[in-house]
């Protein structure tokens, strides 16, 4: 009960915007509203308007930059948002901490458009496929500028090549940064083995002087603007960046990489479950998924949309729609509270090193 009271006090302070900034608080409620929490630049904004027009539901749309930020916000009050789009391991964490609810698939008929293999992959974090419906998926790889790199880019090791000192962009998120260092050493990206993680930490610290900056969304713009030669990036940005700057090429290193799925989930405390179901159903519609794909260029698991992509090159692109069976890929898993803490502490060592 004491905790309960505290959370009320917290909510008050949060509305004050003193601790977290301006967040939409727990005022979700009255009919005809829907609070959506999605990644930044992860939707064609037209789609939101179209949804509002067709359903008469008012959408309040907020964005996050990392899964961890999203979690910190939901952990205070799961009713702050109705529908959220986290990644695999974070869905597992939300599920294990009882922060999301099972979906009623009867109300989401368009789910038939989502390819069955994506539900198979989802089983690693949602074993019974009860909580989540895939929205986008992809891999993590290296984006490089052909005019600035004259070596063959096929290994994570190139990110440790002193030749490219000051030309490398790393991901400023703990799991992605560690994935690179762990796989480079031949370890699993989901390892909880302290000595393996420490080895990765040592590698990341050794790499730090070569790194120009640790960024997330800015990798895209900095690579397009030729600020850097090499950057760790999500496959979804590959089509867009190549379109903006033809010298850029995306590669999945031979050692393997992470395959990720971002899926829609409905929060435990949602007060607009029906609207949230309508939203997910809308997102699963073939034409909407295609519209989103064309705008954000992140691979869609929507088979209906995949069929209707007009550009043959993109439709058959190995980058946008890779054959995962020929690649060494693994999805992130939630590592438990101890695992999270271990990684967070080690990451702090990397970030505070000189």
């Amino acid at each position: 009960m004491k905790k309960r009271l505290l959370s009320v006090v917290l909510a008050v302070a949060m509305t004050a915007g003193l601790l977290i900034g301006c967040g939409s608080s727990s005022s979700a409620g009255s009919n005809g509203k829907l609070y959506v929490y999605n990644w930044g630049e992860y939707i064609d904004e037209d789609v939101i308007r179209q949804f509002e027009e067709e359903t008469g539901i008012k959408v309040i749309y907020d964005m996050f930059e990392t899964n961890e930020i999203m979690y910190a916000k939901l952990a205070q009050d799961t009713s702050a948002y109705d529908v959220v789009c986290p990644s695999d391991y974070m869905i597992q964490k939300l599920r294990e901490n009882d922060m999301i609810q099972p979906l009623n698939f009867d109300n989401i008929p368009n789910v038939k458009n989502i390819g069955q293999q994506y539900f198979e992959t989802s089983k690693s974090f949602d074993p019974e496929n009860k909580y989540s419906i895939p929205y986008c998926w992809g891999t993590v790889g290296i984006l490089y500028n052909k005019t600035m790199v004259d070596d063959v880019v096929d290994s994570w090791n190139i990110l440790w090549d002193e030749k490219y000192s000051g030309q490398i962009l790393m991901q400023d998120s703990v799991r992605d940064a560690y994935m690179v260092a762990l796989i480079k050493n031949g370890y699993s990206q989901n390892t909880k083995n302290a000595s393996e993680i420490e080895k990765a930490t040592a590698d990341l610290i050794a790499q730090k002087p070569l790194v120009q900056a640790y960024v997330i969304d800015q990798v895209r713009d900095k690579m397009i603007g030729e600020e850097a030669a090499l950057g760790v990036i999500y496959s979804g940005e590959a089509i867009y960046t190549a379109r903006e700057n033809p010298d850029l090429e995306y590669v999945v290193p031979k050692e393997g990489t992470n395959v990720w799925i971002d899926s829609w989930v409905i929060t435990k405390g949602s007060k607009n479950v029906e609207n949230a179901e309508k939203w997910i159903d809308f997102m699963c519609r073939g034409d909407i998924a295609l519209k989103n794909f064309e705008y954000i260029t992140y691979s869609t698991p929507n088979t209906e949309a995949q069929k209707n992509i007009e550009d043959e090159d993109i439709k058959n692109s190995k980058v946008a729609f890779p054959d995962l069976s020929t690649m060494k890929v693994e999805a992130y898993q939630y590592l438990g509270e101890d695992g999270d803490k271990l990684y967070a502490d080690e990451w702090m060592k990397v970030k505070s090193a000189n």
Partner: protein
Amino acid sequence: MKLFKDKKTSGLMSSPYIAWAVIFILVPLGMVLYYGLTDNAGSFTFQNVARIAEPGYMKALLRSIELSLISTLICFILAYPLGLILSSMKLQRDTFLVTLFILPMWMNFLLRTLTWMTLLEGKGVINTVLTFLHLPTINIINTPGAIILGMVYNFLPFMILPIYNALSRIDENVINAARDLGAGQLQTFLRIILPLSLPGIISGITMVFIPALTTFAISTMLGGSKILLIGNIIEQQFTQVYDWHLGSGLSIVLMIFILINMIIENLADKEGGTF
């Protein structure tokens, strides 16, 4: 003024401010103290505060202190002569100039910092111009130098204004009297102007040093997230790691620094009063 003589009414009138102070200052402060001095189970501990001694955190704190001291010093060196110039000017022109210095503050500080990022980038505006003129390029983005630049740029007005205020309030007659009694330029400055402007200097230092010490936005944007300041670490505890206890514990350490600063300011103020 009758209104305020009545105790009841004055109590009523001040209630919004009291409510404001309680909700927005006392409650958050109490929560920081509560979280900072408890662990996950809710029992009392000094662990969170003590973790500042860990090498990573200590280094971030020392670096924050170092960078904010340098920025404060640079701000002072830039602001004091400017304050002297402004206060010695004819009234109309100096208000115009002061407005010029405040003008950038009308734009959001994050946007201004973001602009610096674009200006300083390897292929940014400044370097493009330099390359065009066949001059060597500058590469300070993602270094401590860029962070200091960002701090100085953002916080300079907070140094200028109090110094300018203090200087322009000095009675001209005092200076004339000093001259009359045989003090030279330097002596007048050192024994009259400088001591009289001391309160302005001290509040200027406070207003630059404290925001510089606690900033995390400037170091993220201009430091490329490579240089962690104590503000970044606290921010990450709240937003990324979700460890409010540690975040609050480290905030308490920062609060101690701010308190020390305020105590010094108060002491100096009292001394200033005895002049």
